[in-house]
C-alpha cells in the first residue's frame, strides 16, 4: 500500500508492504542511502534515524508504525544547529575510519546533545552504547561529542 512519509522535511510516497522496515523503504524505495544496514535487529545502531526527534533503529521499525511523524536522516541532520555542530566536530577530529557506522553515531550523538547539551561520560556511554563502531573509533567519538557540546576533551 502507499505510505506518505515526511523525510528531511519533504513528503515522499512509497508503495510498499506495511511491515517493511523503515530502513529499506528509505534505502531501496526512496533512495535515501545514508542510514546503513548492519544487523537488522536493532543491535548495532548503523540504521539510526530521528523520528519526531527521537533516535530510532529504522531496521526494526515497520514503515506502518511511522505515520506522519517527521523522519530525519543523516542527510537532513545538518539543517539542525546541533546536528550541524556534531557533524563539524566529527570532521574536525577526523573521527571515522571506514565510516560505515558514523551516520548512525552522528544521529545518536545529536539526539543526546539535544536532550543533554552538556553530557557527562556516563551520559555518553548510555546514549551511545547502542551504536557499534567495528573500527572502534570510540575515543574520538567521545571527544567529538564533548567538542560539539563545548566541553574540553580529556587528554
Amino acid at each position: 500500500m502507499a505510505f506518505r512519509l515526511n523525510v528531511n522535511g519533504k513528503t515522499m510516497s512509497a508503495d510498499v508492504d506495511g511491515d517493511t522496515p523503515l530502513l529499506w523503504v528509505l534505502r531501496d524505495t526512496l533512495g535515501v542511502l545514508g542510514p546503513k544496514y548492519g544487523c537488522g535487529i536493532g543491535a548495532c545502531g548503523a540504521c539510526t534515524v530521528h523520528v519526531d526527534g527521537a533516535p530510532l533503529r529504522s531496521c526494526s521499525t515497520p514503515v506502518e508504525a511511522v505515520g506522519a511523524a517527521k523522519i530525519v536522516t543523516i542527510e537532513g541532520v545538518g539543517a539542525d544547529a546541533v546536528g550541524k555542530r556534531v557533524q563539524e566536530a566529527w570532521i574536525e577530529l577526523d573521527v571515522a575510519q571506514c565510516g560505515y557506522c558514523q551516520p548512525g553515531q552522528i544521529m545518536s550523538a545529536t539526539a543526546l546533545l539535544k536532550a543533554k547539551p552538556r553530557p557527562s561520560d556516563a551520559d555518553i556511554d548510555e546514549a551511545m552504547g547502542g551504536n557499534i563502531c567495528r573500527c572502534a573509533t570510540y575515543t574520538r567519538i567521545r571527544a567529538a561529542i564533548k567538542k560539539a557540546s563545548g566541553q574540553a576533551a580529556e587528554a
Partner: protein
Amino acid sequence: MADGTLPTASRREVLAGAGLVIGFSIAGKGEAAETGGKLNAYVQVAPDNTVTIAAKNPEIGQGVKTMLPMLIAEELDVDWSAVRTRQADSDPAAYGRQFAGGSMATPLNWDELRRVGAAARVMLVAAAAQGWGVPASECATASGVVHHKASGRKATYGSLAAKAAEAPVPDLKTVPLKDAKDYKIIGQPKRQVDTAAIVAGKPLFGIDVTLPGMLYATFEKAPVFGARVASADLAAAKRVKGVTDAFVVEGGESLDGLLPGVAVVATSWWAARKGRDRLAATWADHPTGAQSSAAFEARAVELSTQAPGKTERNDGDVAAALAGAVKTVEAAYAYPFLAHANLEPQNCTARFKDGKLEIWAPTQNPEPGRQLVAKTLGIAPEAITIHLIRCGGGFGRRLSNDYMVEAAWIARQVGAPVKLLWTREDDMRHDYYRPAGWHFLKGGVGASGEIVGWHDHFVSLGQEGAFARSAGMSPTEFPARFLANYRYDSSLIPCGVPTGPLRAPGSNAIAFVVQSFIDELAHAAGADPVAFRLKLLGDKPVVGEGASGYAAGRMAAVVKLVAEKSGWGRKPPKGHGLGVAFHYSHLGYFAEVVEVAVDPGGAIKLVKVWVAADIGRHVINPMGALNQVEGSVLDGLSVALHQKITIENGAAAESNFGDYPLMRIGEAPPIETHFIKSDHSPTGLGEPALPPVLPALCNAIFAATGKRIRRLPIETELLKTA
C-alpha cells in the same frame, strides 16, 4: 567525485578533462617499468592548478586513500589543499598490485609513489625551463609553482601542464627526491579525504551502489559449509510480491569458490528477503556436519599427549634443559574461531551485458576476485571491469571474493544489474574464520632467572602436513632464536570450516600465547615482567638473518618506552593490575601496557592502555596513524573480552551481535600512543598494534587477581572472588 561519492563518470571520461595526465608504469618492486606505450595515470593537473591524484589501493578504513596520495603530493611539491583524490579501478597494468592486506601499503609504496610525484615535478620543471630558455637546474618549485630565481620568473603547474604532458617521462629510479627535512605533507596530520562525505551520509559504500534497472538479491547457503541444496520451494518464494526470480545455484565444492545455494532476486532487498523466508530450503548431508569446536578441542588434548605430527624447530636439547631447570611451568593455551564482523555485510553489485561483466566491489583483493569470476563464469579476465568501492570495514574478510563471484553469477543469470547483499546472519555464518588453536607449553627457568628451555606443541587445524589457511606459526616466531633450547612441534586436525586471515593473522593468537607464557615464566623466576623481557631480548641489535631478522634492539627500545610512559613499577590502586607485552608483526615493533581493575564479582574495567611503537622514521599521516593504533588496540581488547565463534554440527552457532558481541563505547579505555622514530623506512599500521594488547590485558588481570588467563575469550566467572 571530489567529495568521494560513487563515480558516475568512467575513468576515461575523467581523464579526458583538460590538463596534464602524467602516467607511469609501476611494475613490481625492483623490476623495470613496463613498456608498450600504455599510459598509466596517477597525476592530473588542471588549468586551475587543482591536482587530482589516483588512490590505487582499496580503502577499508585504514586511510590509504589519503596516505598514498600524500606521498605523491609531497614530491610533486603542491599544497595538500590543491589535491583531490580519485579511487582507481582495479588495473594492475597501470598501478601494480592493488590490495589491502598485510599492512603493506606503506612499505610497498613509500619509494614508488614518492618517485611518481617527483617524476611529475621534473616534467613540469622541464616545461617551464624550456619555455624560459633556462637550464632546469636553475629552477625550483614550491606550492605548485615553478620559479626561476635569477630572472624572478614564475609559472603555475596549471599553466605548464599541457606542455609538460609532452615531456619525456624521467627514469623513476634516478629521479631526485626531497630531503626529508623539507617535507611539508609527510608527517603532517591530514584528515581522511572522504571525511566530509562520510559525515554527510553520502553514498560511498558497496551497499550504496545503485544502477538503473538494478535488482536486489539475497543468497542462502547451507549452514554446514559447502553442503549442497537438497530442496527449496522456489515457487513459494516467487509468489512474494516484488520477487522476480528464485533459482538454485549448483556451485562447487571448493570453500574458496562459488558455493551451492539458492538465490532470490527482487525489486527491493526486503522483498528478496521475504521471498527467501519462504524457501524452506533443505540441505544434503556433508562430512563437515560431524565437526564441532568441542570435538576439535577434545582431539587437540588427545594429540597433545602423543608424538607430534612434525617437529618444526628443535634447537639445543629442550628435554635436558627442562630436566635441569630450577623451576618448570606447564600450561595449555586455547583460542577460538573468530568472525570478522565487518559492519557492512558482504555485498557486491554486478552487471553482465554483451559478454562483458562490470563489478562494483567492496573488496580488499580485486585481482584474485577477477580470476575467480573469470574461471567460474567461463569468461575472459579482460572482459571484467572491477570498480573498487570503499569498504565498510575489511579486517581481512574482503581478501576473499566469495560474494563477488556470487553477485557475478546471479547477475548473469537474471540478465539485469544485481546488487547482492548478505544478511548479518549470512555474514557471521559464512566467514573465513580466524582459526582456533591450542598450544601445550613447557618452560623452565634457571638459577639466574633466565629461560633455559621452551617447548611448544602447537595443535592446529590442517591436514597432510599443511596448516589450514592462517592457522600456521613460523619456525622463526619469537622466542625462537633467542633461546639455546627451543622446540616447536606441530600436530594437525582436519577441518572443514573455512579459515582465513583476520587482522594481524597468526599474530593475533600467537602473541597471546607467547607473551602470556613469558609472563608465567617471569613470575616463576620471581622477576619483574619488564626486566625479564628485556633480558630475553638481549643485547644484540638484530637476531636472525636477512628478511626474517628480528630487530631486538628496536623492540627493547619500545619496551623501555612503554614502561616509562605507563609508570611501570608504581604500586597501582587496590584491585588494579598492570600487564605488559610486546610483539613484532607486519614490520612493526610494538610494546603495550594495560591497566585493569577487577572487582570482586569478576567484572573487568579497562583503565588505560599505553602503546609504544616503532614503524620507522616517518609516521606519514599522524592523524590516521593514531586512529589505526587506537582502533587496533580496542579491536584486540574486544576479541579478548567477548568474541568467539562456536562450531556445532559443522556450522557457526553465533549469528548476530547479540551472541557475537563487539566492544561498546562504555568499555573503551583511554589510549596513549608514543612513536619512536628510528632510522628505518616507514612501515604499516593497520595491524601490528593489535597483537600485544591481548596478552598485556591478560597479564594485567594476573597482576590484579593472581589468576592466569589461558583461554580466550576471558571468562569473568573465573575471576570472581566474592
